[in-house]
């Protein structure tokens, strides 16, 4: 790994031995050692999935090598075509984008109101909304289905999207309210003096300031929607509306699981999430410096 390479180790070639500098280097060495250790723990399963995707059904549990001698790259081709990913890919992209934008906008509006505005019933409503997270009812699926049926939303995109937006709201509101509570109010106050309406203050001042939290929320929801399939099975029937996870089901029979193809499928579905995550995590970092400090 490259990080290892860059790790500054005690530099003995220098004559002027600097105690402070050596201490710093030593600390940094151990910090990296620890971080790398944890990283290996996180990467290992992913690597395992990847190397399994290059094996055959016969060797997948027999050959425990780090990288198979005879990698079956064709597994990726079969996985892609057999799972019919090309059809599902656009669906999942659409669901993810719409749900995530929906959650981010609706949750941030509500969180902003709960954090900044005064209105009657505020605490009660807040508690009621976040109680969605607390009452886990595996039994509510029938009620949800009956409801969607009444609204003529069974087997429609909207019927799949709306419950998911609702599902992401509680966490979103809770998360964002915590961050709004923490943001300095002065900037918004000065904006208000400048004549900004509350909607404009929210959109142009508060939202950009909350960017790290928004990015976190987006990451959580992207993952949830991208990996979702139980709701899809409940709400959708038509194949052309189904999300990506439906494709993976092809490899998981009641009795037979085609492990290498399944792993190849999983790697294919995980890659876009990784890419998005790479992009978003920069915002977690950039948020405050780009927003608050520069004003």
């Amino acid at each position, binding site marked *: 790994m490259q990080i290892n390479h860059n790790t500054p180790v005690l530099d003995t070639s220098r004559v002027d031995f600097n105690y402070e500098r050596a201490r710093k280097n030593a600390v940094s060495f151990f910090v990296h050692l620890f971080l790398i250790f944890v990283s290996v723990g996180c990467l290992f399963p992913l690597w395992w999935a990847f190397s399994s995707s290059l094996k055959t059904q016969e060797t997948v549990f027999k050959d425990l090598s780090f990288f198979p001698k005879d990698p079956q790259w064709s597994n990726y081709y079969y996985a892609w075509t057999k799972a019919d990913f090309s059809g599902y890919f656009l669906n999942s992209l659409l669901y993810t984008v719409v749900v995530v934008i929906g959650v981010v906008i609706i949750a941030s509006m509500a969180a902003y109101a709960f954090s900044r505005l005064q209105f009657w019933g505020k605490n009660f409503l807040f508690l009621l909304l976040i109680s969605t997270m607390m009452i886990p009812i595996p039994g509510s699926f029938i009620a949800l289905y009956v409801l969607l049926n009444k609204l003529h939303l069974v087997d429609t995109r909207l019927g799949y999207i709306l419950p998911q937006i609702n599902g992401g709201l509680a966490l979103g509101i809770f998360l964002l309210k915590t961050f709004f509570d923490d943001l300095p109010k002065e900037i918004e106050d000065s904006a208000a003096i400048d004549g900004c309406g509350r909607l404009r203050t929210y959109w142009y001042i508060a939202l950009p300031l909350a960017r790290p939290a928004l990015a976190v929320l987006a990451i959580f929801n992207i993952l949830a929607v991208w990996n979702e399939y139980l709701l899809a099975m409940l709400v959708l029937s038509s194949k052309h509306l189904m999300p990506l996870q439906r494709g993976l089901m092809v490899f*998981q029979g009641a009795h037979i699981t085609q492990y290498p193809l399944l792993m190849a499928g999983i790697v294919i579905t995980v890659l876009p999430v990784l890419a998005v995550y790479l992009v978003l995590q920069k915002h977690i970092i950039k948020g405050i410096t780009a927003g608050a400090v520069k004003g």
Partner: protein
Amino acid sequence: MKPIVRIFFIGLMFFSIAGCAPSAKQDTSAIHVWHWMSDREEAFNELASLYEKETGQKIKLELFAPSEAYSQRVKASAQTGTLPDIYGVLGEKRDFASFIRSGYIANLSTALEEVSDGSTWRGTLFDKALAVNEFEPGNEFGIEPGTYGIPLDVTTIQMVYNKSLYEKAGLDPSKPPRTWEEFIGHASILKEAGIPRLVGGFGEIWMLDALASNLAMNLMGEEKVFDTYRGKIPYTDPDWVRVLTYFKQMADEKVFVEGAVTMVNKTAEQTFANERAAYAFNGSWCVNVYKGMNPSLKYEAMLPPAVTDAHPMRIWGAAGGSFVVNAKSLNRDAAIAFLKWLTSEKQQAYLAEKTENLPSNKRSMGKISPLLASFADDMELATHPNLYPVHEDPSVMETFDKGIQSILIGEKKPEEVAADVQRVKEKVEAKRRAA
């Protein structure tokens, strides 16, 4: 936001809403089929298009997997009256009865008597496979007697043993153990040779249930088992304690592969396929599983070792999956005709060959591999909870199976488990009397 991005999002939103126009009402021109068998999806699709070519009748197949998701969908759809023409019911007989009682499933008895090709439809199918979908006169659920489902395949659950490992341990690979003593004897020889012994998906507690009920029926006979379910004989009866003691004995002799107590069956199958266990307790589907993982595996099916010869050894065997016809379907007759076609000799042979399952049609049996056939030849010994005249309460079953797990990890004694089970049984009985 940049304008381009904004337009993109607005477009997406529009697209998503536009896709939301209520989907076309159930068109009756096609027969709608819902299933959960992802490993058979391809074969089903193939058959559906063949059927359309032959008869002009359109078939629309919809897969919902895994089976838990499928069950949820069917239960939810039942509540809204949106079940398809053909579907399957997963779960116990009690659930099946509830579907029938609520008018979601058509009685197919008359259709099964129709004669074609010199035989009734019923006559072409295995009785045992049909029987799981049957309700006898005077059944405990109060369902009108009849047959309510059509079996697609047959499954038996028994044991397999690894012939190469047998040879390695110096045992005769053509002589699997027949009695309990032999089994324990062979196990200790295998142990000495350093070969792990029995594996199974015993984390899925129904597999423990199957093995335990095999032993129980062999030891005390079917009727005594049923009488226990009826509440006439307590679980503290010496025979039941003895059944539990067999598990204690297996635990003491370390017959089970380490970790088998909580294993899911798919892991257990990997273990046996990779020759890390001499025996496995598994269903006939394993032929296909082992073939994929280790084509050179030398093994054979065997009955679970008999503990007495007072009563026959009964193994579990029944329909693997069945289809039912929606009683409210507008396409009822067409749906029945399709099922008839699907379970006819040719289609069953195709399915058996494609998916390596035992066919439900007797006439297709000739076309399966000998190994798979060795699972079928014990069919006359087969029974299944769905064939029993009485049914034990699920909470009692669970206490029993979990109790076996406790015995296997050395936490409880057979007597304690028997007492625990009896306590739950009495609670259930008291409740039933009160109701």
